[in-house]
């Protein structure tokens, strides 16, 4: 009798544990897919997150889901490098990345005192809310959009520029936190600066409306500056047909905003 009871308990425990393992593995796979997609740039990030999650659901077993997710990380790395380094040879990519890291860390050390003082000043002037502009925006339908504009200090409060904001804007310190993006590998000081807007404009799909109308909130002047710089970069770097399309896209976006660029 006891032997039967032990056998039943073992069977139940085995089933519970195996269910937990399967559910944990699927959860882990979903997390890896989301992490992989977060390595991508611009609108590719949310697009591939949804696409990969849909394809993950099609994989039949938990192990296959996990393998699919792990390989999505490889796909994300390849696709991200394609945008960051175009078609540069692998040695050039490594050299650029090393030089970028060295340059960014050196600049970060040099400007650290200014950053700390600015951080404290902006934090206080913004009534102790986050001192940096967020790169997470919401679309009309509530979905998140991750902008690839550089990280900047908040310089506006309630529609008006703060006094410390004016100083930061004049001295250019407001954009210094962008160094973090270089350290992350999302931008470059040494190599080609990625044109993330290329990704946005290249993909004006049905429901992926141009996101810019959502970005220019009261304190996003730096985003517009970024757009203006991108527009200048386009003239020298993009193919003619694509350039015309992007220029009209950017002009329409910038002229539609109430800020002076």
């Amino acid at each position, binding site marked *: 009798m006891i032997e039967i009871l032990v056998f039943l308990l073992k069977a139940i425990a085995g089933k519970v544990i195996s269910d937990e393992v399967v559910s944990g593995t699927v959860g882990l796979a979903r997390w890896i897919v989301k992490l992989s997609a977060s390595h991508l740039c611009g609108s590719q990030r949310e*697009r591939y997150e949804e696409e990969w999650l849909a394809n993950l659901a099609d994989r039949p077993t938990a192990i296959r889901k996990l393998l699919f997710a792990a*390989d999505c990380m*490889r*796909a994300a790395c390849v696709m991200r490098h394609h945008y960051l380094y175009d078609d540069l040879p692998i040695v050039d990519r490594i050299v650029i990345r090393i030089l970028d890291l060295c340059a960014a860390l050196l600049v970060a050390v040099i400007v650290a005192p200014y950053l700390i003082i600015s951080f404290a000043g902006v934090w206080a002037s913004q009534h102790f809310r986050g001192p940096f502009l967020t790169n997470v925006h919401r679309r009309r339908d509530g979905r998140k959009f991750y902008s690839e504009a550089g990280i900047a200090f908040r310089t506006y409060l309630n529609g008006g520029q703060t006094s410390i904001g004016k100083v930061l804007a004049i001295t250019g310190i407001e954009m210094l936190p962008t160094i973090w993006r270089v350290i992350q590998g999302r931008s470059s000081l040494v190599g080609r600066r990625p044109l993330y807007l290329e990704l946005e404009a290249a993909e004006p799909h049905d429901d992926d409306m141009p996101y810019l109308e959502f970005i220019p909130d009261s304190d996003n002047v730096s985003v517009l500056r970024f757009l203006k710089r991108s527009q200048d970069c386009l003239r020298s770097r993009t193919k003619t047909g694509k350039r015309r399309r992007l220029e009209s896209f950017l002009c329409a976006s910038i002229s539609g905003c109430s800020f002076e660029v």
Partner: protein
Amino acid sequence: MVTKNEPRVSVQGVAVLRVFLDKYPQQITGSELMDALGVASGTLYPILARFEEAGWLKSKWEAGDPAKLGRPRRRYYTINGAGLAKARNYLEFVGAASVQRT
């Protein structure tokens, strides 16, 4: 064969083009392509992204709201006119090369 600004086409790339050519004008998801070719996602998606960027493939979301579907939307890929021409060129090239080798 490869002109400037054209994406690099690997052996797997040719295989992807072959599937699109065979199933034209059917819409295919990444998952179906993986099953058809037996390639991993890390190989397939960069190829699809390159071809899409080159204007050989087009993709669109599955119709419907994810909230109503109860799952994320699928992304459907289709080959367009330029892609079809390129696919035929590459398959002819690969066919000729394999005949020469034998």
